[in-house]
């Protein structure tokens, strides 16, 4: 998906882009930052598949620990990760590094991820860069019966970046897609996840934390379609906004007529730390089956004054008290990450952001 194609899509699907007018937002002129961005370093022992400005980059990739044939480069900007065969369990998490600088035109990346029956994989995406050109990443994920994918995505420093991603997932019978995203530090983010639960007992859990400051605009648009009976889906999304940031969360759940006994939950919570910040939360349920359990909730608020005073009366500074409460707010989501899935990195990124912005 090229940027032009994406812009075209935003023109056609007006409703889905109502709060994120892509063309208008892209038109704001920006200059590259003068600060250098920390290079991405993979955790010791993790295989790394690296991309630089949207192209596969062998120099910083570490493929030697990957099972033979698991990873293929297909053309300039497309790659395929296949966990083949039955019961193929890749026990070491695989890292995907997306780095951007201004040395070359950023190109869109297309990734295909296929997990065979009863196989499992943990993927950790890291994004960093100082490039002003939009970063476009599209992923197509296919999970066969009983397969399990744990997929996390962490955004590092990239204050001027435009980050546009879409992940489409199809989940077969008994398979489980688990996704966590830490969205931050981009002037424009659009994080789309579209999951189709196609087999009996298919499951997905989507969770995310979005941190927005300055004039940043962040948008998470998630859609889960229950197409088969007894599916389970969970969405938990938390946003913290300061200064003049704008946030969008659109969470849609569709339950098809055949998808009886669906169990679906969705919760979005946002904290506005300034009067200028704005949050648009749009939960949507479209239920065409009659024997289902679906819930959704959405709150937008500020930090609790009672809690702040309680902490300050025990010696914490106003900023330290705020950071402690914000960390607790975000931790409820971050705890969904297991050790080795980027939990420590996510915690460090949160602390760094709180120290800069609170």
């Amino acid at each position, binding site marked *: 998906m090229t940027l032009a194609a994406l812009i075209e899509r935003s023109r056609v699907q007006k409703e889905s882009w109502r709060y994120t007018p892509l063309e208008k937002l892209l038109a704001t002129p920006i200059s590259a930052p003068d600060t250098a961005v920390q290079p991405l370093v993979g955790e010791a022992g993790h295989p790394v598949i690296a991309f630089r400005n949207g192209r596969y980059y062998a120099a910083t990739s570490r493929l030697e620990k990957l099972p033979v044939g698991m990873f293929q480069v297909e053309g300039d900007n497309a790659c395929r990760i296949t966990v083949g065969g039955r019961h193929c369990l890749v026990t070491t998490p695989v890292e995907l590094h997306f780095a951007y600088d201004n040395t070359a035109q950023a190109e869109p990346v297309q990734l295909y991820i296929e997990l065979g029956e009863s196989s499992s994989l943990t993927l950790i995406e890291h994004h960093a860069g100082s490039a002003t050109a939009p970063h476009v990443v599209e992923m197509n994920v296919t999970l066969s019966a009983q397969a399990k994918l744990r997929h996390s995505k962490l955004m590092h420093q990239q204050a001027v970046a435009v980050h546009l991603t879409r992940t489409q997932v199809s989940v077969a019978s008994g398979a489980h897609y688990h996704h966590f995203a830490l969205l931050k530090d981009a002037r424009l983010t659009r994080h789309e996840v579209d999951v189709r639960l196609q087999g009996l007992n298919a499951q997905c859990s989507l969770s995310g934390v979005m941190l927005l400051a300055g004039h940043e605009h962040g948008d998470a648009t998630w859609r889960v379609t229950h197409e088969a009976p007894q599916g389970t889906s969970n969405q938990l999304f938390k946003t913290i906004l300061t200064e003049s940031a704008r946030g969008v969360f659109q969470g849609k759940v569709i339950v098809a007529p055949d998808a009886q006994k669906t169990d679906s939950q969705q919760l979005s919570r946002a904290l506005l730390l300034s009067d200028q910040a704005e949050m648009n939360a749009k939960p949507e349920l479209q239920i065409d089956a009659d024997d289902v359990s679906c819930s959704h909730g959405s709150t937008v608020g500020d930090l609790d004054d009672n*809690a702040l005073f309680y902490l300050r*009366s*025990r*010696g*914490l500074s106003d900023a330290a008290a705020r950071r402690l409460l914000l960390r607790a707010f975000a931790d409820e989501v971050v705890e969904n990450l297991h050790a080795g899935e980027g939990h420590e990195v996510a915690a460090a990124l949160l602390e760094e952001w709180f120290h800069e912005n609170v």
Partner: protein
Amino acid sequence: MLSIKNLHAEIDGKPILKGLDLEIKAGEVHAIMGPNGAGKSTLSYVLSGRDGYTVTEGQVLLNGQDVLSMKPEERAAAGVFLAFQYPVEIPGVTNMNFLKTALNSIRKARGESELDAMQMLKLLRAKAKLLGMSEEMLKRAVNVGFSGGEKKRNDILQMAVLEPKLCVLDETDSGLDIDALKVVAEGVNTLRAADRSMLVITHYQRLLDYIKPDYVHVLAYGRIQRSGGPELALELEAKGYAAFAPEAA
């Protein structure tokens, strides 16, 4: 230790405290009793620095330091501690982490070295043991799912860890049954010390059966109407607060 002179305070322009005077020496326990609306909670919040309370006149000195010009956290570092009438629940923050952050913030403000994880654990365990509390309580989120008694004991644990100079206990007995009240009072009594003063604010005499004050004051209509020894509390219990209206005083 604590010297309050001619304290006037208001909320949203409405005067609540109207010239309150109080002197507490080191090691003394003073009780303030008063009817609803007398300004008891206002006094505790003005002493601890809560937003929304405006001091229009008067002075509060703690060991010669001007308390009213300090932020809440500076007061904590100077040794002011408020045990809340309703301790606040903080989901997602463990007692352990909270106490660690609080104590190290105060030590830092006092120019003392921060404690490392091991030293902290040792200290917290010792304090919990002193108050007969389980270590399990340290691992739970601050006051979340705690009973009324557990919340008050948790505040007393914070007091034990932070070792304040002045403890203000705001309606510590509210919401407690008699057994819980005894346990909390025992905790408070354990923390009585020659260099620590306590101000016990209460509506009922009952609490003072367990925390024995040296002095009792009657607060009504924004001022101390009468002061005396522990016997004053018994007189109050017998006569009610009506006898202490300003014109009757």
